[in-house]
């Protein structure tokens, strides 16, 4: 994302949302007209456990400044156990990114149910702000993808 001198840095946030809870939660925040920044772009996946670490790295590579993964609350997964696997995978992946010195606030896992439109909006507002504070992603970017 570009940084102009007279323009506030606008981060690009990619949000992976599971179809059953979080995507529905995002729809609900829309239905209730709860605002969150347009920086957030949602990609629908059937379950949070569909999200491969490669997708997250890919997003950073192509210019995302923050990646958030939303799924059903533990115990509520439409597929029973998907989010439990997600939780382990992402804990380890984020820990590794942190180990490599990548800012840990660029990644997040959040559980948002289909009823939590307000939580979805609040989470997105909060996450966007946190990433905004970090500034553009420089530690895990592909220079060739940087926008002018």
């Amino acid at each position: 994302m570009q940084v102009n001198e007279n323009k506030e840095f606008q981060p690009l946030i990619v949000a992976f949302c599971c179809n059953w809870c979080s995507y529905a939660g995002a729809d609900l925040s829309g239905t209730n007209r709860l605002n969150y920044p347009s920086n957030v772009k949602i990609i629908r996946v059937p379950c949070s456990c569909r999200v491969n670490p490669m997708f997250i790295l890919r997003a950073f590579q192509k210019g995302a400044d923050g990646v958030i993964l939303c799924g059903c609350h533990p115990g509520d997964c439409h597929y029973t156990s998907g989010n439990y696997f997600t939780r382990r995978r992402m804990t380890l992946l984020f820990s590794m990114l942190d180990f490599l010195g990548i800012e840990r606030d660029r990644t997040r896992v959040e559980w948002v149910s289909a009823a939590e439109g307000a939580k979805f909006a609040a989470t997105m507002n909060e996450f966007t702000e946190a990433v905004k504070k970090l500034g553009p992603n420089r530690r895990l970017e592909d220079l060739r993808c940087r926008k002018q």
Partner: protein
Amino acid sequence: MQRIGVFVCHCGTNIAATVDVKSVAEALGHEPGVVISQDYQYMCSESGQNLVKNAIKEHNLTGVVVCSCSPRMHENTFRKAAASAGLNPYLVEIANIREQCSWIHKDIASATEKAIILGKAAVAKVHLNAPLTAGESPVAKRALVIGGGIAGIQTALDIAEAGFEVDIVEKNPTIGGKMAQIDKTFPTLDCAACILTPKMVEASQNEKITIHSFSEVTDVKGFVGNFTVTIKKKARFVDETKCTGCGLCTEKCPMKKVPNEFNMGLDNRTAIYIPFAQAVPKVATIDPNHCMMLQKGKCGICSSVCSVGAIDYKQEDRFIEQKYGAIVVATGFNPINLDKYDEFAYNQCPDVVTSLELERLMNAAGPNGGTLLRPSDKTHPHKIVFVQCVGSRCDDSKGKPYCSKICCMYTAKHAMLIREKYPDTEVYVFYIDVRTPGKNFDEFYRRAVEQYNVHYIKGMVGKVTPRSDGKIDVQASDLLANEQLHIDADMVVLAAAIEPDKTARPLATMLTTQMDTNDFFTEAHPKLRPVESATAGIFLSGACQGPKDIPETVAQASAAAAKAIGLLVKNSITCNPCVAHSDELMCNGCSSCEKVCPYGAITYEDKEFRMPDRTTAIRRVASVNPAVCQGCGACTVACPSGAMDLNGFSNSQIMAEVDAICK
């Protein structure tokens, strides 16, 4: 070469007011492969769909992107439209520019920019969509109803009526649920037992219905049309097939001081008991916590008096496994625990009772044989105060945030019945609002006021203080008189909020259905699919979905039955084609995918392969059963080689979306 059509919906002004739909259509028209890009007022309308259909035919489209509302709303609509125009329905992608764009952003420029990006992501994805064909899977012609209250009974009767086998699983020794405990029903004031017990008998006599009383569901596997359920038949220490329900054992049992749940603990029962006279099945049950034989090994009276030898102290929990095509949840409700509302002195004073306790106090089969007496001193109360909304309509920290819905009406009923039977009794009802939507409901409430002279006072009781003279001081506000009142009452009746049964939460986890924050089951759509859960094949009946009165419960029970029947009449159901599949050439056979599959959809076989060096090798490779796979994608990430991929959400499709969004 791809030929993609893009259709941008205005949704009236829902989208068009914040997103410049013309420039979205214009921008997406320049995307690679896009041959036509149009906008239209209402894309989901018939003429909107025709626009899509005609474009598919006219431009020979290979893919369609609709920029509109959430795919959860109209993805199916447009898939069907595409199919009717000869395009594989899975070549349609939706860009959600309403719920996730126009409705949440205010700035037209940034909303439009985002809408274009979402559109581009959908175009990028549809480039990689493959035509998919749905497989089929058989339907087991049997339904399971969990919960044997009026909801469960009605659902079971309706399904049986349609000719299908139904099993009712009830955790208590008898079916009947809450309605069996109720004295009279509003707004007609007919006796609950008179209308419920014939239905209970009908259920027990219907040859299509099997009642598993004193049983619980312990495990659910499988999926729509093909559930395998494990039912635990708890040991009742009485052989159900032999017991005639004569009741001699309950008369002779020496352990007579067990609080009687059916009468809300207002009187006692024996350790071996039949909950009430019309119980179904009418079979005795031994309460192992109080039976001296089971506790200390001494007694055995029931066994010696039983003429058919039905008593079996060695009985153990039994587990049965059964296949079902459909499952209906009817787990019902309970009044909340009132421990934390100190101000109403519920725990201090026996004459402060809940409404359900009052039902038993007034019931002919209740502890006082139908005469309304104070629990403390068995005297006739002359002044009764009803308190509405106890624990309902509260801030989350103080109680339930919702209206319990039934309290206004049953309180009017109680007040009326008391005034009818004991005209010397003064009755006060403290209300915040009187909510009586329903056929003949407001008329009923007005009758309580106008005909029976029940004192309705707008205001809330602030404090209830039992006095040493046996009276109860009720301090309350009368908002219309702008006064604080003190009433020296003989009894106080609390309209406790209702909440879903505690068994519902673990059941929801087993069924993989969703619940709201209050533990009510979430319906698939709040308006259009009110009796289905979001999980296919699981239906909702009665108060497990939200507070409901009896007529509403019965209506929903029949609706749930109709939906279940609609499923059971099919010989097979169309499967979701968005399932995982494995590329055998890349599969390592390492079993990682199998370990994470919640459905056991993955199996392995040794296959012979021709290797690049022209030798042959036997390799262990995974294969996915498309009828069992539900398409979660857990396996795709567990697979290190990337051999496992998911139709409709493939690695390359998701990465294309990522790329388009980040471009």
